[in-house]
């Protein structure tokens, strides 16, 4: 039952490691059919099998750092998320969220019989080649020989013909002489055309002394290896296999869909709905299958409600948590109906639509100290940031301002962050102002501050940090909503430089609306000047800023604007659209 080379290229599941090869915070170096793998177990137990190559400079990720929820390349520190292999952070661009398309190639991973199995190409779903049981993996034995020759040598080493049962692919249940006549099952992992690993399993319960059994098999297989390698030395070495580099998916290879206005791209199931705080509903939105797209701390999503409303919620997850997104919704009876619809109508088990995550509030990971200030439901993006900083053991403090202890949302998640969380409970405006003044009093080099909360609180933090000498670029803020009165009365002309289109903007309509009426789409999310999604480069003219996203320096620069609310002070604006 020798196998030819064409057989081993046939798509099939092969063992690529033992489960015990993936201890805590380790990266295993694997290979199947010429394709190298970086294999690592995240702290949540998930096994990742990735192409062994950083997308940046091609360095092997198997020498990278397993940080528990992200794998960090040893060379320039690019980080990739557990499950999706999407890039979450590029140290050379600390203030930017990496593009969604920077996603490494992943391979399937299944743990069964104490082994890790993977496959290349189109394979049928994994089915265990043996009944589940108390299988104990033997010491894997790499052999420098053709996989087919290794299997042939293994089956030739059997004691009795009747005991041999071949198992697909490259597997055999057989008895090896000198091992107490017990059956063992061996799989030959085709590493390359001239390299293989013998991976054996035996039923552990039937043996008293596991260690001497493991040694016995190891000796027996080592002898076999010597014979096979001696024979192979007489043959000409086969050409190494060239891994199949499949083209990346269309979604990752092409420019994003130009129609990326507010699109309900994803369907998720409400896996859990609970009281996450006195006036906060927690929602766990789970993937219908597989995992959800990569996000970075600070990211938000659009939730499309059954009543037609679209609302933005920050993702509170820690790094590498992609089976579901957890968001917090504050119940506001006087709102326009979004929070009430969620609190009263949405039920566990409902399927709802969301956008892909978008990050206009990215977290730097190069600060000497990070100060996070949360007011009320403003905790949500900062919770994701705190979890990320804690996971990398970066110094931070999370200040939580709330009306009462019961109003602190997500208390269980905050408990896990330990002493980095500082509650400020039940303060009046004067008390809050005094606390904030103290918090921002000590600006030091490379400190960064992130604040999310009600408008007056943000205004206060921005004022106080400016007075305390914080540079504007070190103070990052996210408003829930635009606190400005929008003045839509002006009329002006907008030239879209790249679209070669000139549009007249009448009073009462936004630039974004007029653009869409004329067939030019652009990304947007909140459409009220708070989230930053429609940020556009201004090439000429003076914008009339009405948003709460840009800081004062950005406003004064006249080089960017929010097309959903901002207008023009000059007669004409030229935009890079």
């Amino acid at each position: 039952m020798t196998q030819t080379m064409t057989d081993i290229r046939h798509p099939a599941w092969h063992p690529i490691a033992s489960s015990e090869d993936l201890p805590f915070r380790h990266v295993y170096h694997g290979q199947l059919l010429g394709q190298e793998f970086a294999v690592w177990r995240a702290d949540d137990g998930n096994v990742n099998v990735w192409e062994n190559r950083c997308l940046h400079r091609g360095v092997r990720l198997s020498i990278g750092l397993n940080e528990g929820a992200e794998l960090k390349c040893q060379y320039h520190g690019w980080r990739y998320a557990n499950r999706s292999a999407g890039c979450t952070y590029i140290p050379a661009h600390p203030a930017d969220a990496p593009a969604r398309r920077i996603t490494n190639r992943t391979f399937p991973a299944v743990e069964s019989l104490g082994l890790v199995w993977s496959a290349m190409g189109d394979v049928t779903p994994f089915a265990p080649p043996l009944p589940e049981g108390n299988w104990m993996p033997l010491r894997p034995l790499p052999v420098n020989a053709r996989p087919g020759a290794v299997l042939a040598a293994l089956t030739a080493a059997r004691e009795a013909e009747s005991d041999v049962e071949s198992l697909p692919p490259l597997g055999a249940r057989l008895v090896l002489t000198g091992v107490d006549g017990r059956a063992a099952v061996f799989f030959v992992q085709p590493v390359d055309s001239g390299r293989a690993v013998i991976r054996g399993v035996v039923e552990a319960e039937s043996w008293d002394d596991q260690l001497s059994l493991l040694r016995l098999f190891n000796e027996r297989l080592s002898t076999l290896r010597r014979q096979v390698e001696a024979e192979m030395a007489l043959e000409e070495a086969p050409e190494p296999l060239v891994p199949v580099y499949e083209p990346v998916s269309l979604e990752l290879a092409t420019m994003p869909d130009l129609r990326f206005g507010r699109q309900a791209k994803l369907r998720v199931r409400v896996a859990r709905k609970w009281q996450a705080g006195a006036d906060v509903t927690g929602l766990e939105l789970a993937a219908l299958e597989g995992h959800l797209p990569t996000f970075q701390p600070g990211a938000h999503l659009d939730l499309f409600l059954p009543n037609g409303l679209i609302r933005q919620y920050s993702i509170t997850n820690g790094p590498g948590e992609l089976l579901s997104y957890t968001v917090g919704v504050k119940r506001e009876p006087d709102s326009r109906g979004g929070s009430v619809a969620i609190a009263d109508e949405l039920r566990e088990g409902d399927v709802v639509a969301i956008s892909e995550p978008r990050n206009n509030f990215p977290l730097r990971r190069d600060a000497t100290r990070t100060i996070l200030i949360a007011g009320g439901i403003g905790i949500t993006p900062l919770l994701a940031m705190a979890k990320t900083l804690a996971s990398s053991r970066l110094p931070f403090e999370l200040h939580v301002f709330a009306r009462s202890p019961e109003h602190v949302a997500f208390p269980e998640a905050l408990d896990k962050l330990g002493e980095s969380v500082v509650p400020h409970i039940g303060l009046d405006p004067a008390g809050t102002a005094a606390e904030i003044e103290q918090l921002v009093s000590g600006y030091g080099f490379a400190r960064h501050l992130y604040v999310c909360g009600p408008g007056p609180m943000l205004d206060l933090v921005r004022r106080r940090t400016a007075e305390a000498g914080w540079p504007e670029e070190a103070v990052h803020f996210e408003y829930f909503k635009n606190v400005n009165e929008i003045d839509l009365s002006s009329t002006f002309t907008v030239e879209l430089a790249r679209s070669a289109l000139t549009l007249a903007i009448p009073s009462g309509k936004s630039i974004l609306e007029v653009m869409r009426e004329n067939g030019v789409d652009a990304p947007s999310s909140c459409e009220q000047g708070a989230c930053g999604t429609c940020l556009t480069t201004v090439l000429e003219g003076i914008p009339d800023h009405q948003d709460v996203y840009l800081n004062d320096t950005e406003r004064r620069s006249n080089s960017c604007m929010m097309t959903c609310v901002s207008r023009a002070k000059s007669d004409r604006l030229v935009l890079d659209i």
Partner: protein
Amino acid sequence: MITLYDFELSGNCYKLRLMMSILGVRYDIVPVDFYPGREHKSDWFLKLNPFGELPVLVDDGLVLRDSQAILVYLARKYDTTGKWFPVDDPALTAEIEIWHDFANRITGTASAARLTITMNYDFDLEKAQSGAHQLFRTMDEHLWFAEREGREWLCKADHPTTADIACFPYTALSEEGGISRQDYPAIRRWLDRVRRIEGFTAMSGVFPASRAREAS
């Protein structure tokens, strides 16, 4: 005061920097231009070590050569725990010596391959590489069964010894000599453990490990 005659890219010099970093011993460095200057064969250096080999360590006038011998000296003189080179258990002491010898064999193969590729030395590359693979097969098997017996280090002790320090550098640098460690998963795990020893220091080509934290 200790003075180390050192070449930054030498694994055997790094061995001593690593040991002294772990033991918290302060030392001065005199750089010796091993490549391309061949300063280790210069008259002034030959007076220090007639073999013309790095490293040399001078402690208060005492001149020492041979990296394994110096490891023993440092451990016996500066390690207050007595664990890095224990002398009260003859079997353990002998076992450490066996791995010191093994370290020399790694130098003779893996380091020779690295010198050929990175510093234009004229060794038989194929022979050096296959010799290193033979050693690594032995070492991987040893470490795999050590893990099964609940041990993390090369010798039968619940703590690392100079044996681990002696074998670490040229194993960790083997890929610069074209010797992949893909087939030696137990060695790769042991390399992670060594890199997590408190006081560990890196060198060019030897990277730090991620933080090990207890899984909660």
